[in-house]
């Protein structure tokens, strides 16, 4: 049975590069290197961001492989989305209000930012937010965030 290793940048001999590497991270912190596992099954008891019925995203900083193996061992179907999603951390409700129509008091949620780009938005502590966006649109989103921060005089 395939372990789908080709999905996992952690299985490579070289370190993966971030899709945001060409944008100066003044307005955001690039956290794209975080491990991201999409888990399918009965995810109700998992510590994870819900993505929809029977789907959740586990975000982790540690060893992706052991987490993946653990979850597979528990009977979940697990897909490594580490490389699929760019991740940005943003400070400030004002900047977030320019980015998304989502209610910032009702996060995490999936919504639209920057002309229809789908993003998963999570509130960290205080006024710190984390955005997950498709990596192919990561640079575009990072540029939009930078421009919006400029509009706020940052």
């Amino acid at each position, binding site marked *: *049975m*395939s372990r*789908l*290793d*080709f*999905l*996992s*940048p952690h*299985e*490579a*001999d*070289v370190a*993966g*590069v*971030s*899709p945001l590497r*060409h944008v100066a991270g003044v307005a955001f912190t690039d956290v*794209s290197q975080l491990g991201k596992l*999409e888990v*399918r099954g009965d995810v109700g008891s998992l510590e994870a961001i819900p993505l929809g019925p029977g789907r959740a995203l586990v975000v982790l900083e540690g060893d992706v492989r052991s987490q993946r193996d653990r979850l597979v061992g528990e009977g979940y*179907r697990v*897909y*490594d*989305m*580490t*490389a*699929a*999603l760019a991740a940005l951390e943003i400070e400030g409700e*004002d900047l977030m*209000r*320019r980015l*998304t*129509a*989502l*209610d*910032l*008091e009702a996060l995490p949620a999936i919504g639209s930012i*920057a*002309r*229809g*780009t789908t993003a998963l938005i999570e509130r960290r502590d205080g006024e710190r937010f984390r955005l997950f966006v*498709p*990596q*192919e*649109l990561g*640079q*575009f989103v990072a540029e*939009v965030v930078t*421009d*919006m921060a400029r*509009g706020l005089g940052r």
Partner: protein
Amino acid sequence: MRLSSQPGERIDRSRQVSFFYDGSPVEAFAGDTIGSALFASGRRVFSRSFKYHRPRGLLCCSGHCANCMMTVDGIPNVRVCVEPVRPGAQVKAQNVLGSVDRDLLSVTDKIGGPFTPVGFYYRTMIRPRRAWPLYEKVLRNLAGLGRVPETWTHRRYDTEHRHVDVLVIGGGRSGRAAAAAAEGDVLLVDERGPHDAPYEVLAPATALAIYEGGLVPVDAGNVLYRIRADRIVVATGALEQTLVFPGNDLVGVMLPSAVRRMVDEWALKPGTRAVIVDGELPSVRNQLIRAGVEIAAVVRSPSQLAAKGRRGRLTSVLLDGKRIDCDVLVVSGGRQPAYSLLAQAGARVEYEPGRGIFVPTELPPGVEVVGSAAGEFPQTPAPAQLDGGGDKCFVCICEDVTTKDVKRAVAEGFDSIELAKRYTTVTMGPCQGKLCHLPSIRMMARETGTDESAIGTTTARPPWRPIELGLLAGRHYEPLKRSPIHHRSEELGAKVMWTGAWKRPHSYGDPAAEVRAVHEALGVIDVSTLGKILVEGPEAAELLERLYPNRFGDLKTGRIRYGVLTTDGGRIMDDGTVARLGDELFYVTTTSTGSDSVREWFEWWNAIWGYDAEIVNVTGALAAVNLAGPQARDALGLLTDADVSNEAFKYLDAKEIRVAGVPCLALRIGFVGELGYELHCAASVGEHLWDALVAGGAVPFGLEPQRVLRLEKAHVIVGQDTDSESNLISAGMPWIVKQDKQDFVGKWALPHVTVRERLVGFTLPAGVLPPEGAQIVREGVSRGRVTSARVSERLGKVIGLAWVEPERAEEGETIAIRIDGVLHDAAVTLAPFYDSKGALLRS
């Protein structure tokens, strides 16, 4: 000239600001508006009217009417009565030929009347038709108000989203009281300046509309706020209406609001001698007296009134038969609740004859109204028209619509307010009916012999106040998808082109050389944009078996099969490859543009069928490259420990191997016709894989050489060579359809499809390249079309694909293709142009 310090004045006399009017400096105080500063400098005529070019002066001082519209720093139609002064601003008059004081176009007021009756533009200047270009040129110059500058420095506009518990619209007494009493997260939006309050105030800002779901867009200058509130309190107050009488537009005729703001806020003296026709607002009289204006007369409800003037400026009034000299006439046709936002939200509007106003009723849930906007003020109805003979009598000041125009429209049969509005343009000017709402309805009632409730109101539409289009547009962001290898291509000097939302390399400088590299040695192309979907589960095979017309249940692990998706109607929808990676695991590729729609298609059908199978879109998770050319095997072998010999890794095999230290899914397929491997790996290590392949001698090639190469193999591009009517039979792929399967999407339709045309290959001599879409002609009639055509250097001729009549779809048939009006004979071919048996792919 200014009055002595007034209680509560908004100007700061310690801070001087200067700007320019028509190039000359104007001194102002901080807190002034451009309009108040110009008035203080002695200016009385602010604009010329829309149609007759009559002089117009400050009328409402509330930002409602069009009388003070000027061009400020290149932005046309700015209402300077509410536009704060800013240092160095360049203010110019607009819509004039000459100057605002001497406008040559005012000739239309003197002699143009007979030629420009209501609706003249529907019936004059139509004949002779050949003169239209001339008319159009003249009319284009005369029509409209300000002009958008041809050179433009982009102003920044942003959009911001807010969620609040309570939104109060309007910062008057009632609005402030409602905001103070409200609980939770309260935001008050005020058109005037900010004020200190225990709640949040957004000012100066204007609520433009109330849309479904409590969405309120708010114009705050450079930021458009999109506010969602659980509870909306509308406190928009009431709007002073104009009174209809001869000369009611003369410079010096003012609404009470104008006097109030001039004296109280800007310490201006409105004139020297005033007549007041408005007994219900004694404060205006006090304000004028405080300003040192002599009060010549105060009349509550005259039976006869006419304003007389010289050069458009008020000199006297004729009041109940008596002439009184004055330079200020304060009049009001009563107040009307500003209910527009409520009507947009779904409230009903009813006429109340006792006070002669329309009031909002039956408010939708979550929307409330307080204060004057609810009609909470005493009032007696004003007359439809006061007559005194003489000058024009305007119902709509913005659009220069006179009582005569309304009468004529009714006489011509436009007897409903909605029709008369469109015919006369009454209420359609820049104030959008704010000042002429009641007068127009009163006139219509009088002329049609009914009452105001029977006439009703026109539809209240957003925006409540005109806004700049730039504010609606916001920032110019264009979503751009970049492949994980995008930057490497840019570094290599690729010529980049848009394909959907992606930017992809067209070529790296020399498409022909890139084609040669693939044929003769080794090429590599970034195909990361391909759609990629995992289908996993005990019933994954059943799901695919039922989605595709061809068979997948019998596909062995480690093998690949080409698949075409069809719609219920049997039409070609998308194509790609399906690789089986395990008993319960399949890897599906789609076209670059099809990844989302195919994933949705899979999920939609699986929601109906309910198979135990996960559908996972991994398009973005993976980079993909196609390594192709006779040297592909050797080059790959140098970068992997896996056995890539033809025996161990056959054509249409799928294997998970490590290449240059990167785990890859390697698919041995051949879209470009040479020995080739598609390598799919995690996106973030895609660059590393690419670098290793290029370092190994692979020549990067772009989309253009790829198109030539695939055309040599007669490989179809869905969407390019097929359209929404194409089916597998007519596209020459009947072998894909396994009609003996129990069920698949499109099964019922495929036996019934009519083959009206067939997709075939054709060749032409080199040098005769038909454009895509070129027509295939027989007996002077179009019989088909070319979908793709390229010069094949390797084959020494032009090759292409075309839809032709079925009877022409025979090897060696001749078809005629029209190119630049000339017919060229082309030879039909049914087999691929290059390596027709696929020997190279299998080698």
